[in-house]
C-alpha cells in the first residue's frame, strides 16, 4: 500500500489561530484611570495609591517595547507612547505605550492582595483596556470581574524590544498564498 494506514487530526476543524479558549475562572477586581477614580469608589486613599505605584512599577517591565516610536504609535496611537527606561543592546532608545489605566490585583476577592496591573489601549480599539500582553480586560472602569490570568502580572520571560520585523515580503498585492 502506498498510502498512510490512517489519517487522524487532533485539532483541525476548530478555530484557527485562535488558541482554544477554555472557560477560565473569573475574579472580582476594579479598573481605574486615576487614583481619584479609585477613592471615588470607596477604597482608601492608601490602598489606591499603593496600587497605582505598583502598577507604575510593573508598567516599566510589562509594557510592550519598541525600538521605533512610530511602530509604538502605530499600535497605540499618536502621542500615546513614551520613552522607556530600557536601552537596546546597542544603546538605542526603547519606546512603550502610556499607561491608560490600572487594575487592582485580587484584593476584592478577599484573597492575598495582588499586584496592581498597568493597562493599555490600542490605537484600533480605544474602548478596551488591555494588559501588557494584550489580553482584553474590560471596556469600562470601575468594579468588574475578569479572567484570573489577566490579573496576574505578565511574566517577563524575556523582554521583546521590537515586533513586526518580519512580514515585509508579504505586503504585495494579488496573492492568495505566500508559499506556493
Amino acid at each position, binding site marked *: 500500500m*502506498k498510502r498512510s494506514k490512517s489519517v487522524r487530526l487532533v485539532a483541525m476543524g476548530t478555530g484557527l489561530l485562535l488558541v482554544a479558549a477554555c472557560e477560565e475562572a473569573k475574579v472580582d477586581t476594579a479598573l481605574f484611570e486615576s487614583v481619584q477614580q479609585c477613592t471615588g469608589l470607596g477604597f482608601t486613599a492608601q490602598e489606591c495609591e499603593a496600587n497605582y505605584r505598583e502598577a507604575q512599577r510593573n508598567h516599566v517591565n510589562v509594557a510592550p517595547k519598541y525600538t521605533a516610536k512610530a511602530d509604538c504609535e502605530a499600535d497605540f496611537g499618536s502621542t500615546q507612547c513614551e520613552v522607556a527606561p530600557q536601552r537596546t543592546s546597542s544603546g538605542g532608545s526603547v519606546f512603550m505605550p502610556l499607561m491608560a489605566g490600572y487594575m487592582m490585583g485580587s484584593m476584592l476577592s478577599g484573597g492575598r492582595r495582588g499586584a496592581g496591573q498597568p493597562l493599555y489601549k490600542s490605537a484600533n480599539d480605544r474602548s478596551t483596556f488591555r494588559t501588557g500582553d494584550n489580553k482584553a480586560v474590560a471596556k469600562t472602569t470601575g468594579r468588574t470581574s475578569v479572567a484570573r490570568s489577566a490579573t496576574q502580572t505578565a511574566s517577563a*520571560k524575556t523582554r*521583546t524590544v521590537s515586533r513586526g520585523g518580519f*512580514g515585509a515580503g508579504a505586503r504585495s498585492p494579488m*496573492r492568495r*498564498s505566500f508559499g506556493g
Partner: protein
Amino acid sequence: MERISVEPRDDWRDTAEAHGFRFHTIDDERYWDESACYSFTLREIEDDIEDPTAEIEQLCFEVVARAVADDAVMTRLGIPEAFWDFVADTWSQQHRNLYGRMDFAYDGKGPAKLFEYNADTPTSLYESGVFQWVWLEQAIERGIIPDGSDQFNSLHEALTGSFSQMGLAGTLHVACCKDSEEDEGTVEYIADCARQGGLDAKLIYIEDIGIDTEGRFTDLQDEPINDLFKLYPWEWIMTDEFGKNVPNTNTRFIEPGWKALLSNKGLLPLLWEMFEGHPNLLPAYFDGDPAASALGDTYVRKPLFSREGANVEVFENGERTVSVEGDYGAEGHILQAYHPLPNFGGNYPMVGSWLVASQPAGIGIREDTSLVTGNNARFLPHIISE
C-alpha cells in the same frame, strides 16, 4: 496515466468543513476539484515519479555542497553576502529539513521532467496528505472508483513520524503570514502533525514575531522562540528588518537556511550544469549565460524567486507567447527549455511530488487550464489502479 471523470461525493463540502478544510473554494473559484481524478499504474508511480524524486534530492544535496563552498554560486543564487556563512553553517551543522515538493511535468509516456523544486514553503500539503486520502477512502466505499484502488500518499504518516525524529524539544512555533486562509490551513495542519509527533505546537503570525534584547525571537507572550516552522520564504527573511538578526540568533528555523539554495530557480541551471543529460532534468541556464544559446529562441524565462507562476514568460520562436504578471524578477532570471505540460482535454496537470525528511512521500496534482500553473489551479485527487 489517465484523467478519469468521476462523480463528486454529494456531501464533499460538508466533509471538507468537518475536516477543517476551509479553503476548498478560494475567491469563489473551485480549488478542490473531484469531478475528475488522475489514475496511474504502480509502475508509473514508482519508476517514473518516486524513484526520480529520491534521486534528484541527492543531486540537490550535491548542489548545496557545491554552493556553500563557492561564493560565486551563492552570488548567482541571489543569496545576500551577509547570509553566506549562515546558510553554509546550517548545512554543515546538518539542520534537519522537514519537507519539500518537486513539481514535474509527466504524461505517463516519457520521463517526468522537473520544472522546479519548492523546497522552502510548499503549500497544498493538507489537501494532498489528508483530504485526498479521505476522498480515496470514501470514493472506494461508495463505488465511485474501483475496489483496491490505492494512492501514492504516505504524507501524513511521514510528517507525524518525522516530527518525533527531528531532535526538537518543547514548543515548536509555527508561523505564517496574516490574510491567507490557504497558508493558515497549511500551518494549522503542520501544527497538528507536530502535536501528534509529541511536540507542543504554538501558532503565531510572522508579522507578530518579536525580538528581545539578546537577539532571540519571541512570541506574543514574550516567550522565546526556540524552533520556528515558517511558511515564509527565506529570500524575504533575508531582506526583512529582522533578517539581520537571523545569523546570530539561537532560534532554529524549519525549513533550515540551506533550503534557500534549493527553493530557487537557480537550482535548475546548476543541476543541468552538474548533471547534464539526466532524463528528469530540463536544460536550463542562468539568463545572460552565453551557453543559453543552446536553447535557441524557444524557452521559458523564470525569476529566481517566483512563486505560483508569477512573472513566468514563455518564448516560442523568439515571440513571447505567455506572460504572467507579478512582482518578481529584480533578483535575476533563469532560462529553461520549453516543455509544455501534458494536455488532458484542455487541462494541464502538474505533478507535485512530496518529500518528507528528504524521502518521497506522495503526490498531489494541481491542474490549470493554462500552461503555466498559477493561482487559479485546481487540486485533483489521484489513484493507483492495477
